């Protein structure tokens, strides 16, 4: 099947298997390996990306469903050499250890802040329910998002 998907601002036209998951399209067809896979059951959120500005677990979506859509992955979040404030916040606040959950955490939280730029800690926690981290105990992740929201004018 032919699809045309915009990823990080570039249009990619490919002939793909109808069963191909979006996460495999991103990782294998395009070689954008910042989007990770951590489970088989849509639990972990390591694969979170933005589709038309909303966060989405890219393992829950077929690549053909993304036809004509705009996708942003972790690689497309920074503005050239300028990191997104959320990326800076995770860096500054020790919001990562092994870092495998980090791209998904950053994508989920940046989309969330668009809807809710001034979240309480409680709201941040609810927004991250679908993103697992096995290393940090989440405290510094919540702190990072809080810091980013403040920096972004929250």
């Amino acid at each position: 099947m032919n699809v045309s998907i915009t990823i990080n601002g570039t249009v990619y036209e490919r002939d793909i298997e109808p069963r191909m998951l979006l996460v495999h399209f991103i990782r294998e067809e395009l070689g954008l390996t910042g989007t990770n896979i951590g489970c088989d059951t849509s639990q972990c959120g390591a694969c979170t990306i933005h589709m038309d500005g909303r966060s989405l677990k890219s393992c829950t979506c077929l690549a053909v469903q993304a036809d004509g859509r705009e996708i942003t992955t972790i690689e497309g979040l920074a503005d050239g050499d300028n990191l997104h404030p959320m990326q800076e916040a995770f860096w500054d606040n020790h919001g990562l250890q092994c870092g495998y959950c980090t791209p998904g955490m950053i994508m989920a939280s940046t989309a969330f802040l668009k809807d809710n730029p001034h979240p309480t800690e409680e709201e941040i926690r609810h927004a991250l329910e679908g993103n697992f981290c096995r290393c940090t105990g989440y405290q510094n992740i919540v702190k990072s998002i809080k810091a980013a929201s403040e920096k972004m004018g929250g």
Partner: protein
Amino acid sequence: MIGQSMTRIDALGKVTGETPYPGDINLEGQLWLKMRFSDRAHARITAIDTSQAEALPGVVAVFTAKDVPVNEYGLVIKDQPVICGPGSDMPGSDIVRTYMDCVAVVVAETDAIAAKAVKLIDVTYEDLPAVFDMEAAMEDDAPQLHADSPNNIICHYRIRKGDMEAGWSQADVVVEGVYETGYQEHAYLQPEAGLGYIDEEGRVTVIVGGQWVHEDQEQIYHALGLPPEQVRVIYPAIGGAFGGREDMSVQIVLALAAWKLQRPVKTIWSREESILHHHKRHPMRIYSKWGATKDGKIVAAEAKVIGDAGAYNYTSNKVLGNTNLMVTGPYEIDNVHVDTYGVYTNNIPCGAFRGFGGPQGAFAAEAQMNKLAEALGMDPVEVRMKNVLREGSLLTVGTPLPKGVTIPQVVEACAEESYWRRGDGAWHLNRPPQPDNPALRRGIGFACGFKNVGFSFGFPEQNWATIELHGGAEIEEVIVRQAGADVGQGAHTVFVQMTAEAVGVPVEKVRLLTHDTAKTQTSGSSSASRMTFMSGNAIRGAAQQALQLWQDEERPAIATYQYKPPKTTPYHPETGESEPNFAYGYVAEAVEVEVDIETGHIHVIKVVCANDVGVAINPQQITGQIEGAIVQAQGYAIMEHLISNEGKIQNPFLSTYLIPTVLDVPTEVKSVVLELADPRGPWGARGMAEMPFIPLAPAITAAVHDATGVWFDEIPMTPDRVVTKLREHGIGIL
């Protein structure tokens, strides 16, 4: 640089997605590998037919037992075939002993073809009697898993100290319990993956995530029958480990396939494959009986520990060695009698997991201590202070601890920083008020613990570092070669900090070469809370020598140093007498929980953790370890229930094996970081990353008891178990 929260040296690549993990690396012309695992818990493979798989278009090769040159592996004892089945000259390798045994390996042009082909392999099994209960496995008529381990006993450790009869006769109160701890799955977020290929120097090379590059190398060259220099192991970024990457998963088969085919071969495990095919934390059954005088002094302690090793040893004999020492807690007790067994069964193998036998020991020991406090009508902090190890105290194995025993300070700091106040020369608990909803009951619990830093009981412990000083009039660049694995904990950042400190240059001048057997010498494993302690001492030694050469005008000035800590000794087979360890970490935790007596849900509200880290080289990474360990331990105590039925894991998904999400974790974790220097540690640092795990489960059971009056001697305390037990006590019936 010591004491500064330097940001991680790998943070940039991790927040931009640039950093590759093992599954992210590809090579031109790579093939894909898939493993076929056993369909039986215990059986002899009489035939294996791979012809259909081989005939599938796109399949390049199928490897079976006959293709493995030296068909055995294992970290401590090489008791597991790389591939089980007929045709290998390794005795016993035609038998599968667990569902996670590998029976064949397929290599194909794509992952999908390989996955299809493994299903076409026809394996003929002749079933053997199997045993799944650890105590049943010790019976005389139980099926035997390994010829050299009668009654399936891998290890039996004894501790015989003092005079038990005299001890019991002094006891005014005696408490007893039978404690059961469950499996725990590591659930590192990055499932196993790797890439094998032949490098530019003709070496078979494996890019993989592990905990010790040189150990992976050794396991590979042994199985492939190659000289060490023919094998190379490289780690990229590693997506968590927690002990779960200490043993082999994909390493040997990737090397085998790449070596035989002389082509790159890649594999990525699914989450299901990961949970089904790597080892777990040991389930243990612990029988414990302690006696104390009415003023709170423990006078006798007896325990019997049985640990389910599963079908192969992995590190079981070492894990059980730790439990043997820790099952009587960080207390000085004159009369002690302990028997500890590691037992083979046809269950999934068990091995290293954060705490390494310590959490199971502490679960029993601290529950015993809390029950003693209750029986004596004493405060749990007060009774601990009467018994804790102090400088010069003798361990149960008859020798003193290394200097710098700080458990008394740690217990007091935790009490003060949490819910206790000192008054009238004693400790008093101040309970927060109960919630208005009568279905919710709050309680406070306390527990403490100790854990060795570094490899124990006579293991030849060491760590190599090389420091190169480059420049002319002044040092322009420092290269440090240190192999130690950064599994996510931040070891590499700490290596750079310690090198900058030891040489006296800013961190910007330091470049780290690591994670590659071709560029470094062995560091030992990133486990046993040892990496900062061991590598720091090696880096200091190398820096000192390099600086001397620099002064003598050598350019570049290069020095290599091997740090060896003071020797330890194994348990005496009859009495257990030994010098078990060269360093320890000490920890105490207080927790506040809320129990919903209707649903059985336990909510951990707050944890206060006092951990003596000696010196906090990177304080932010220290608190990161504390917070992460607490959440993992909370999962262990309450949520994480891996179900095995006749050796088969029933819930190998993150949808059915539940780990804590952000909504499950305590809203407040207060880290009380003590810096009471270890005289042997680099700049005084102690190991710390396992310690906060150790006392949490028993602190939670104590808090649940405080809330409900019921003791839970079995973990995990899942809601259904809690409800059942509370109802037995007439609690929560509405």
